[in-house]
């Protein structure tokens, strides 16, 4: 049997304001029937563009060359997608190859019932009466594991959870029985426990429906879990292609090796015990520490103390409010790093924002550096603000785009009267930039001229500018590529060990938290599920939710992941999903 899709010498160029960008250069790829091929690579490596070109879902500015031979779903013929006319292309889309998008909540149209949307694909390709289409939609929903499909087929997208929505998107792809499913980061927008379920479903797609899957992902754990074969892309080219076990066992290309080394794994020990300080950084950090004068605030009273903390967002139109944080007790001691872990909607970001005074506390008690935050006035809290640093999730938006990096980092110094203007603050700014491994020439650039990792390091420099006693880091690495993330985490560990600030590190990724935190608190639906020393929580979780969270986390090792998958199955069978 021949390949489902055969990509030959594909090149894609985009016309942009900054000239032509060659996004894909000479890519050759083959996907065999019933095979899961994963394309991995960092953002900008061309993996998504390659996959989308199979359905020719490219913007007008793209120019393509090469050939993409796609086999039709009756296995009788192949067609070169790149030369098809509009009508023929429309016939191919959905029937021969279907797409599963990253964000299920935007891939579904909110004003139509899901059953109608599933049937839309059927109507596009064959004449089918309403009853039959309805029946087929119900059938395919049952097969992707939506409970009670006869009833739910008429529900609207907002009535489903994120994981169920992704199941429906997969159902839309499966309903025409395509030979190839292109899954573009199908689990990136989902929580880790839901991700495990969706990966399981995709495996079923392959086993029961016989579809080949082209999986695009940056998550090596997902690759280890699902893929048969892996293609590693780097700067528009495929640098390595191998069977999954071979690739993880004996990576050939240096880039693949770097990529795999950068992936955080649970139980690999804490970073601060491992990383060494580069000489030039050590100097800058030493100077900073002298300027910061004295470590007397590093001992004594807890920096943050929450007792029965409640944060409620007011509801609209007399509806009850949403309780984001519900009776949480937390303590952060001086110089300690607390990792706050939870899925989306668990209230972890809300706690960080409440500590920073961005979100008002509804009930209970929250003391931050000696100030009670319940009903606090901005005037009272403002002096405390300079003792708190904050690193935001998305480095792209947390800098004013019209100020240079040096001006941005100087802002806290100017605001709190340490320096008169940006020029006066420049000496300290340069030291700070050096401490985060940016040379001082970066200070004169604008935020958009820096890469994501550089921006996040500059963001760290800004947070540290006033020698904070407490640093709040809200998912500081989740917008970064894995190799960049590794560098930023190293830096975090180094600076924390040297400057000894207390830190609240918020993340959804247990492996990342494991690298840094002294203690870990696990949040679930606004309540504290478990809290304790990092080794204890990760090695011997007591709470069933923590257990499930840990079991759902795919590890970047195919053999180990297969074993973990079995453990996850028994665990979910024992404690059904709430």
């Amino acid at each position: 049997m021949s390949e489902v899709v055969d990509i030959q010498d594909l090149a894609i160029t985009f016309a942009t304001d900054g000239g032509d960008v060659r996004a894909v250069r000479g890519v050759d790829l083959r996907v065999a029937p019933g095979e899961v091929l994963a394309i991995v690579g960092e953002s900008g490596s061309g993996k998504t563009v390659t996959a989308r070109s199979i359905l020719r879902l490219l913007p007008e500015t793209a120019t393509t060359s090469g050939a993409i031979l796609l086999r039709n779903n009756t296995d009788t013929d192949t067609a070169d997608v790149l030369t098809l006319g509009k009508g023929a292309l429309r016939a191919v889309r959905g029937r021969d190859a279907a797409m599963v998008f990253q964000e299920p909540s935007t891939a579904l149209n909110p004003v139509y019932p899901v059953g109608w949307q599933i049937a839309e694909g059927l109507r596009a390709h064959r004449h089918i009466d309403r009853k039959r289409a309805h029946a087929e939609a119900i059938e395919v929903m049952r097969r992707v594991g939506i409970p009670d499909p006869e009833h739910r087929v008429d529900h609207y997208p907002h009535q489903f959870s994120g994981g169920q929505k992704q199941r429906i998107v997969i159902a839309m792809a499966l309903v025409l029985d395509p030979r190839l499913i292109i899954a573009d980061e199908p689990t990136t927008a989902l929580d880790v426990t839901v991700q495990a379920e969706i990966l399981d479903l995709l495996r079923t797609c392959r086993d029961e429906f016989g579809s080949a899957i082209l999986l695009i992902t940056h998550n090596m754990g997902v690759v280890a879990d699902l893929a048969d074969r892996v293609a590693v892309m780097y700067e528009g080219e495929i640098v390595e292609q191998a069977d999954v076990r071979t690739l993880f066992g004996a990576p050939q290309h240096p880039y693949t090796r770097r990529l795999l080394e950068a992936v955080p794994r649970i139980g690999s020990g804490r970073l601060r015990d491992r990383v060494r300080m580069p000489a030039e950084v050590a100097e800058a950090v030493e100077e900073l520490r002298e300027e910061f004068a004295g470590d007397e605030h590093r001992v004594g009273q807890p920096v943050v103390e929450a007792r029965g903390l409640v944060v409620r967002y007011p509801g609209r139109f007399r509806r009850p409010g949403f309780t984001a944080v519900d009776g949480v007790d937390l303590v952060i001691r001086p110089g300690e790093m607390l990792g706050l872990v939870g899925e989306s909607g668990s209230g972890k970001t809300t706690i960080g924002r409440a500590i920073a005074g961005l979100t008002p506390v509804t009930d209970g008690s929250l003391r931050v550096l000696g100030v009670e935050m319940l009903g606090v006035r901005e005037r009272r809290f403002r002096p405390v603000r300079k003792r708190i640093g904050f690193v935001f999730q998305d480095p792209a938006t947390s800098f004013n785009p019209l100020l240079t990096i040096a001006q941005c980092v100087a802002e806290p110094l100017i605001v709190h009267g340490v320096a008169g203007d940006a020029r006066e603050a420049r000496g300290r700014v340069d030291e700070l930039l050096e401490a985060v491994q940016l040379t001082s020439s970066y200070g004169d650039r604008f935020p958009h001229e820096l890469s994501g990792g550089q921006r996040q390091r500059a963001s760290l420099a800004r947070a540290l500018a006033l020698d904070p006693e407490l640093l709040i880091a809200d998912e500081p690495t989740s917008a970064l590529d894995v190799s960049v993330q590794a560098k930023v985490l190293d830096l975090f560990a180094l600076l924390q060990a040297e400057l000894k600030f207390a830190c609240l590190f918020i993340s959804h990724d247990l492996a990342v938290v494991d690298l840094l935190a002294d203690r870990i608190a696990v949040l679930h639906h606004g309540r504290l599920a478990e809290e304790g020393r990092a080794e204890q929580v990760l090695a011997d979780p007591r709470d069933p939710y923590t257990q499930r969270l840990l079991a759902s986390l795919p590890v970047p090792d195919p053999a180990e992941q297969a074993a973990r998958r079995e453990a996850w199955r028994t665990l979910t069978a024992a404690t059904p999903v709430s």
Partner: protein
Amino acid sequence: MARTARRSWLDRVPVVHQLRQSVGLQRGMLIAGLVLTGIFLLTALLAPVLAPYGFADLRDENGLFGAHQRPSAAHPLGTTVGGFDVLSRVIFGARTAVLVIVIAVVASLFLGVLLGLVSGYLGGWLDRVLVVVADAIYAFPSLLLAIVVSIAVSGGQSDMWSGVVSAAIAITVVFVPQYFRVIRAETIRIKAEAYVESAKVLGTSTARIMFRHVLRNATRSLPLIFTLNASEAILTLAGLGFLGFGIEQSSGAEWGFDLNRSLSDVTSGIWWTSIFPGTAIVLVVLGLTLVGESLNDLADPRLRGRRAAGAAAGVPEEVAA
């Protein structure tokens, strides 16, 4: 990448940057608009040099011009019913138009931007009140509002400056809500941006956040409304003049008012008194609108045309995602 990350200073000048960025039809539109606008501004600046006579001259050394003279060597565009030279009045009319536009747009810009910023950032009851007021102003037919304001400001006088100022203020009142709305919407969007929050957690004062972080980022769409409003301002001015709320012919040249005076000429076959001021209005409005619309299209990456990528030498992709 063909171009380096650092852009030259020339690229940072607003309109020049867009001109370099544009291609094809969009470039043609922008250039046509810029040329028309340029001619308009130059005419206004050099009016005393360009015009053969003053705008209020009725005679030269050879005596009176005479009323309703056909276009001739002495009067290339003829003379009006009152015996003024049409060409001179059209040229000096550009001057009045520029003055009114500048005063009106600058006043509404400052007022509208300030109110929008304060209202959007602080919110609360102030915001609600201002929005209601802006909506109430929207509810008036704009020309009626302009007439009322014009009468109130000038007190019935119609010399050059009170005419210009009253027209400008009338236009300001009509335009402030537009600037207010745009800046308020931008401010509300930017208020939720992470860099404003990061300024907040640093303990930055409200005024500093508003002017350093929000204002400069909120003004991106202003050049666009600015040009579009300028063309609307000319139309409002001409409308006011046409209805007789303008500047006396002896104290200033104004296209709308001249059109008003030429109404009766049209039926008696005297075309030159109305065609030329009318054409001037059309061309200036067209020029400003072309500039504004092109800036609008170029500011939006989805509307902006680009040269096709050449390097891959393949088939251009005609199917959009």
